[in-house]
């Protein structure tokens, strides 16, 4: 057997080196010979037994006396007998009821104490039943009790085998096994295990001696050891480097936030400028500006959350309101024939919670630079059942590219770049898509190294009804990416609700896969 003794604790080392093969030892012996306290003994025995270095030789019974709550009070403030003697010596004779009142004791307790003390010649009583001290001071028995109390307070308990016969006699009267709250000592029977070295323990002992380990090696390197230089003549105890470390509770990013952070950094590194906006939007920006007809099925009460109050915004910014309204009605000057219905200028002020990220792309148009690239990772709200595939609110990643020369092929190039840079895709496929605000519209499907083929996002060129009405005369590429699916994969999750988990432990333990 290959014994690793380097990592033994000093208590183990000292124990192993102290006892010889064949000898018996117990707590009492180590306390006496090695100045261990009881706790240290127990620790050493439990570790050594677990390692198989010591084994049980036999068990021995012993009696100990533990100080009770009352006993501690006696030790500190005096026993009733001591207090009676003290009061009488200081204040002179008095009658028993008065003595009881004076000390806050029951009459019968004072009575029985008097009986005992008068027998021992400590107290006496005159004809008027005044009790007084004889001047003899404490009796031998009282002194014995005092000594027991003080030793017990110091050591926590008293070993029955340590007591003299007088002490045994005295403590017998003031201790009980059960219901000990009325007496100063509780009697307890202890079973003590007596150990001896196992063959492995004997081998370990040899190994320790061979290695010159005494248990006096330096443990933690303290400032004192450094300032005194005391470390110089000593060796250092080797630690068990395999023992499991403590857990660190660290300050940390939310892993999903970290992923979004990375996406934002990536997009800004690709030349995109970030946009953001308020959570409350109007129907104007949420749908009308995106050329979704006001009667469109996706604009139903069952698709968008309406704000209860204020139900309507005060106004919609001009000239965009007039231009968008005209584009819906007859195409305005966009070259479109429009939807051919009467635009509702009251409905357009209706307030909703933003339902799609494209809203902010459109809102960016009036102030956008040409050429320009913009993006946003924005919170959206959709009227839907909350389940593993959709939350009440979620992030969408959207953006636009404006330029005189951008066209379908640059849109495909852009999508290819996203597929490679953000999704790490191996293959990219483009298929015609449909969005009310882009024409042509393209969906990009990618072959992801782990997820296989899936739709990375939707895109297109903003319809002139959208871009021209918002003051832009150049083509605008618009795109949106399904980031959450990849975020889930990165985090090893499969439920979108988990991205917004309130559970601290889950979030603390979560990490990239």
């Amino acid at each position, binding site marked *: 057997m290959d014994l690793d003794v380097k990592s033994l604790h000093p208590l183990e080392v000292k124990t192993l080196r102290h006892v010889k093969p064949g000898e018996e030892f117990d707590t009492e012996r180590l306390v006496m010979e090695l100045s261990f306290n009881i706790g240290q003994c127990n620790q050493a025995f439990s570790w050594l037994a677990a390692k198989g270095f010591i084994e049980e030789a036999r068990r021995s019974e012993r009696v100990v006396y533990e100080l009770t709550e009352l006993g501690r009070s006696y030790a500190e403030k005096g026993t009733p007998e001591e207090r009676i003697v003290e009061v009488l010596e200081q204040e002179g004779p008095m009658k028993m009821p008065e003595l009881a009142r004076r000390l806050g004791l029951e009459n019968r307790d004072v009575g029985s104490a008097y009986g005992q003390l008068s027998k021992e010649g400590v107290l006496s009583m005159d004809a008027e039943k005044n009790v007084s001290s004889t001047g003899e001071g404490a009796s031998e028995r009282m002194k014995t009790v005092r000594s027991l109390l003080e030793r017990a307070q110091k050591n926590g308990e008293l070993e029955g085998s340590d007591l003299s016969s007088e002490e045994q006699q005295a403590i017998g009267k003031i201790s009980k096994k059960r219901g000990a709250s009325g007496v100063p000592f509780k009697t307890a029977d202890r079973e003590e295990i007596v150990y001896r070295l196992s063959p492995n323990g004997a081998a370990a002992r040899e190994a320790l001696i061979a290695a010159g380990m005494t248990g006096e090696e330096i443990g933690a390197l303290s400032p004192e050891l450094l300032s005194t230089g005391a470390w110089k003549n000593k060796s250092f105890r080797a630690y068990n480097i395999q023992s499991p470390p403590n857990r660190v509770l660290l300050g940390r990013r939310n892993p999903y936030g970290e992923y979004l952070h990375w996406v934002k950094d990536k997009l800004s590194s690709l030349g995109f400028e970030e946009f953001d906006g308020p959570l409350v939007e109007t129907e104007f920006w949420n749908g009308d500006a995106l050329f979704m007809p006001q009667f469109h099925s996706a604009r139903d009460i069952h698709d968008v959350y309406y704000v209860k109050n204020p139900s309507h915004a005060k106004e919609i910014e001009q000239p965009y309101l007039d231009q968008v309204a005209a584009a819906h009605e007859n195409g305005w000057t966009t070259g479109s024939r429009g939807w051919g219905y009467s635009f509702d200028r009251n409905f357009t002020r209706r307030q909703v919670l933003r339902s799609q990220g494209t809203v902010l792309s459109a809102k960016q148009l009036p102030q956008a630079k040409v050429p320009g690239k913009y993006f946003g990772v924005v919170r959206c709200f959709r009227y839907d059942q909350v389940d593993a595939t959709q939350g009440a609110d979620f992030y969408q990643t959207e953006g636009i590219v404006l330029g005189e020369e951008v066209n379908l092929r640059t849109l495909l190039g852009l999508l290819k770049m996203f597929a490679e840079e953000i999704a790490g895709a191996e293959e990219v496929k483009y298929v015609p898509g449909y969005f009310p605000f882009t024409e*042509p519209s393209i969906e990009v499907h990618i072959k992801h190294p782990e997820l296989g083929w899936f739709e990375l996002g939707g895109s297109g060129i903003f319809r002139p009804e959208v871009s021209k009405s918002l003051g832009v005369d150049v083509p605008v590429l618009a795109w949106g990416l399904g980031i959450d699916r990849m975020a889930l994969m990165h985090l090893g999750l499969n439920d979108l609700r988990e991205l917004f988990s309130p559970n601290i432990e889950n979030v603390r333990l979560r990490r990239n896969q």
Partner: protein
Amino acid sequence: MPKIEVFQDALYKYAGKKYGDHELEEMLTVAKGELDDKDESSSELKIELNDTNRPDLWSTAGVGRQLRVYKTGEVPQYDFFSTADKEQDYGDRVVKIDPSVKDVRPYEVALAARGRAIDEATLKDIIQTQEKLCWNFGRKRRSIAIGVFRSDLLTYPITYRAADPDETKFVPLQMEEKLSLRQMTTEHPKGREYGHIVADFSTYPYLEDAKGEALSFPPVINSAYTGAVKVGDENIFIEMTGTELRDLILTANIVACDLADAGFEILPVKIVYPYETEFGGEIVSPFYFQQPVELELDRARKMLGVDFSPAQAKEALQKMGVRAEGEEKITVTVPPYRNDFLHEVDIIEDIMIGHGMDRFEPIMPSDFTPGRLTAEEEFARKVRDIMIGMGFQEMMYNYLGSKRDFIDKMELSGEEFIQIENPMTENYEFVRASIMPNLLHSESVSAHAVYPHHIFEIGKIAYLHDADNSGTVTRNSLGFLSSDGEVGFNEVSAHVSAIFYYLSRDYRLEELDDPRFIPGRAARILYRDQSAGMFGEVHPRVLENWGVQMPCTCCEIDLDTISLEE
């Protein structure tokens, strides 16, 4: 987005060719369709169609037609369409519109078909087309409702009028007794679903034939006698009522083309209006109303980034079923079943699809633009770094919640909260006006997590704010919470102090009386003499409301206020 079910064999018959599953998936992209599911036992396919402006694709015949045309490049010809200049023979088939429907449901269009006994697949497809068109294109029957009838049982002319809801009675489909129109709106399942569309009118739309035989109570239900089309029927009459005439005519055209492709002979019907419509007082349906559209080819070249020859562009359009003539300026003849060319970009997209996606080579945009994060994001990142440095775990929460969590448990009155008018459940009825309830929610579900807890979130909050145009305001906010047996005011105050120190900003504190905190242990943060947040020891009543049994301190700081330079 409509999803249709088609029998594979029927689809391939219309498509003129059999496809393997993978091949079919590829082909469906030209119809912006996705193969959603396939039932191997019945060989029934589920196809999702994404383009809400192409209702002609929402049937087996429609998808099959697009696939066939794409493959062959042959544009289908239908000879039964009337135009403004040329009327087809409508025989004795006339529908008279009574002036009384003008304010109730003003338009009606119809056609008849005869030919072969309807088989089960065709009947199923007719019913499905009817449902999809009414639901998605007809706004749940509001603007379009379709009825199919056994024309052998009908006598022309048919009248469309507004009728007395109580006096007018017939036996509706799925029932055996006569009901008044009003009774149908409450007693018939379809009445309960669609009755509300006409419920507010004093008279209800009603169709009857020359002999007074009921056809239907549109948009609710057909007669059980005339309107129960069965397998084996050879002659059918189809009509649609609604509020948008163009949409109705387009719908009739789609149905006519579908039936023609299924082998039926289409029999035109004349609709006689007592009032003018945009197509005159008499319309013979199916009616080709579309106008030719023009496109400068250079526009398509610029948008698609490819130098097409006129022949290539025309060939591409032909594959989409669109005939085009001309050279540099082409004139497009819109198919009778389509009305989605609002703008030349819509034609350009058809050129793109017809040309084939894989023939466009991706190129990178060459314009240089500097990338940049918002100032708010940059600031948030600084604050986040400080919080993490102080040992806080970042959390991310949903922004919607319940009155119970956001208001009641926080002991607030809630008047500044933004409420949702149409919540799906009371669990998501309010927008958060503070991050604190989210943080306490975390505590309420995390008693098992090793203490101490130090958590924070940087996110948006929104609340009512009169001065803004929307009457609300959205702010970027920092919320953080510490929980453990030892936490107290001093610790959270130290955290606040560190945040401001490392942001190089000064702040003042003043006493705060807030039900969320223990009185005397709460502070308001003032930055440039403006309120910028608050912190303190969370009141045990609030902790009790959340079922939290560990002391907590909490702080919230308005980042948009403290991001301003001193």
